[in-house]
């Protein structure tokens, strides 16, 4: 096991900066997930840790040792590639033992380590097969097995589940979590899939445009997003945003007026706000919005545009009056959905809404998860 420490890591291609100063501490045995949209730099950061990309500036420490110039094979790491990168002309056994063979490990030890890794992954019966004779899931296991036999201090995973179908992805997620518990190694995992990030990561690093937006546990990021980007990135459907103007602040409560004219109160500490007239963004997750008949809730007027029945839940998409924005509302499948084109009002608990300033940073919510949840009303 080993810790990984990044200090001021930068990466430039020609004059184009893709990693813009990353500071991050990954502890011994931690399962850390890098998540972010395409092009955010998450894979580049992983490749920097692997040694497949040079570092333009900054310091990388693996196991307390500065590793900027250390060859990839000598960093004590192993990587599972998105494509698995199994050598097609070698058998599964040869693929798994290749690194050990290069390291001149005695044949008997190679045999023993490959068979032990194969047993962990339940692929002993595949050792003589070539990769082309394996299914996607089996290839994935072999790729992980190839990493395990090296007994690395740090495992790196570059979107390893993206080539699997949905059912196999779910199953492999569970197996990866089990593997982490058994091996107790440090694991760094790159994905753009927020479900993988939320389910696997003990710590999630949200990246955007080559910078870290927020680091925290899955619940930290979901319940207390630092900014609008993180709030919008995690959650499916994503958080609903309403452009608004601050109309007043009283203690730990803010009054805002939405673009469509509706006025609501949010439990947020807006002490640092300039004052009335400041442009803000209201954020409410789909599961915290409720649909009520017009006149019943004094909420935000909207028209139902689409209803999606997903079995366990129903998603209702509604067009907010006076704006082009479409909001998503998640409700129990047992609740009868409104009909298409019907007018509704959207209400939500004031203690479940987020308020973001013009720069996208969140105003600290003035509520806790266990707070009472009165519905937001127009004042």
């Amino acid at each position: 096991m080993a810790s990984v420490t990044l200090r001021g890591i930068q990466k430039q291609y020609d004059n184009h900066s893709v990693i813009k100063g990353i500071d991050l501490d990954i502890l011994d045995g931690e399962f850390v997930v890098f998540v972010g949209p395409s092009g955010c730099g998450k894979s580049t950061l992983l490749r920097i840790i692997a040694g497949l990309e040079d570092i333009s500036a900054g310091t990388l420490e693996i196991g307390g040792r500065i590793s900027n110039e250390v060859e990839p094979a000598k960093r004590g790491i192993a990587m599972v590639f998105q494509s698995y990168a199994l050598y097609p002309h070698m058998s599964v056994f040869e693929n798994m033992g290749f690194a050990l063979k290069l390291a001149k490990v005695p044949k008997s030890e190679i045999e023993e380590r490959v068979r032990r890794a194969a047993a962990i992954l339940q692929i002993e019966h595949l050792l003589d097969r070539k990769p082309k004779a394996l299914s996607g899931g089996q290839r994935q296991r072999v790729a992980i097995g190839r990493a395990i036999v090296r007994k690395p201090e740090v495992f790196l995973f570059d979107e390893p589940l993206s080539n699997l179908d949905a059912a196999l992805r779910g199953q492999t997620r569970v197996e990866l979590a089990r593997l982490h518990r058994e091996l107790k190694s440090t694991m760094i995992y790159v994905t753009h899939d927020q479900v993988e990030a939320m389910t696997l990561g003990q710590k999630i690093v949200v990246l955007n445009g080559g910078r870290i937006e927020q680091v925290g546990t899955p619940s930290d990021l979901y319940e207390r997003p630092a900014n609008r980007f993180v709030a919008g990135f995690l959650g499916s459907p994503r958080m609903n945003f309403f452009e608004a103007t601050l109309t007043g602040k009283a203690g730990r409560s803010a009054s805002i007026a939405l673009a469509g004219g509706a006025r609501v109160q949010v439990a947020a500490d807006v002490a640092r706000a300039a004052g009335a007239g400041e442009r803000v963004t209201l954020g409410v997750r789909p599961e915290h919005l409720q649909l009520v008949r017009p006149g019943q809730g004094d909420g935000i007027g909207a028209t139902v545009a689409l209803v999606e029945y997903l079995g366990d839940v129903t998603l209702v998409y509604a067009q907010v009056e006076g704006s082009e924005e479409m909001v998503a509302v998640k409700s129990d499948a047992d609740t009868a959905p409104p009909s298409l084109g019907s007018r509704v009002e959207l209400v939500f608990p004031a203690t479940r809404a987020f308020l973001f300033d013009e720069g996208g940073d969140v105003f600290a919510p003035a509520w806790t998860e266990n707070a009472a949840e009165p519905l937001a009303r127009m004042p």
Partner: protein
Amino acid sequence: MNNRSQLGWTIAAVTAAVLLALLWAFPLLWAASTALRPEHETVSSVFHWLPQTWTLDAFRTTLSAGNMPRWLFNSALVSLLVTLVTMALSLCAAYAFSQLRFRGRGLLFGLAMLAFLLPFEALLVPLFRTMHQLGLINSYAGLVLPQVVSPVVIYVFKQFFDAIPADFREAAVMDGANPLRILWSVYLPISGNIVWAMAIVTFIGAWNNFLWPFIIVTSNEMMTIPLGLTQTYDAFGVRYAQLMAAALLGALPVALAYIAFQRRVTQGFLAASGLKG
């Protein structure tokens, strides 16, 4: 298309293929027919498709009287060396141009490709002078060295390597392999068919090369088959039966090599062209 017109097209295509095959095979069959008759029959004023007297005399004379075994050995040795060295150099160069990042890579590759534009004939004099200065006239090194630089082979390998996902190289780097090991243990096995195809083409090219051996070799002992064929005449003129027997004997090893590796060559060219077999 209905069945009748489809049958018509099939018959036309097969007929055309047979005619083309006969056209291609005619010189070969005629050479065989000539080599299997007595020498006097080859200059007879009466035309016969087949020998009036069947004999292997021309083959016996070619193999015993001339220096044919020696020329065959020279051709085999030179072609094999040219092939091995060309493959080794071209694979290394192509891997470097395709996978390694170093200053001047594009310029060097451009220079290598510029050699495409230079006909070999234009290099004859400077090459001969160089070989002469190195004392390599009438030597195997002199025969082999100028033939081992092949921009075409480098280009084909580079294109093939470019199409191999970089993940293989990076996985091998993570496994602790150096560039030469990656080439040998990963890229070479993956590129098996295209390497075989290029090797056979290079071997045939070296076997059939007449011009460079003609320039660099003056000794009968160092001649290769194409050069040796020019020796199959005497004071009375060309001996056609012997000439054809020598030509057939000379072509036989190459033909056998091609037949033996035909499948790999075809697969290699299909792989290089991006078509599936």
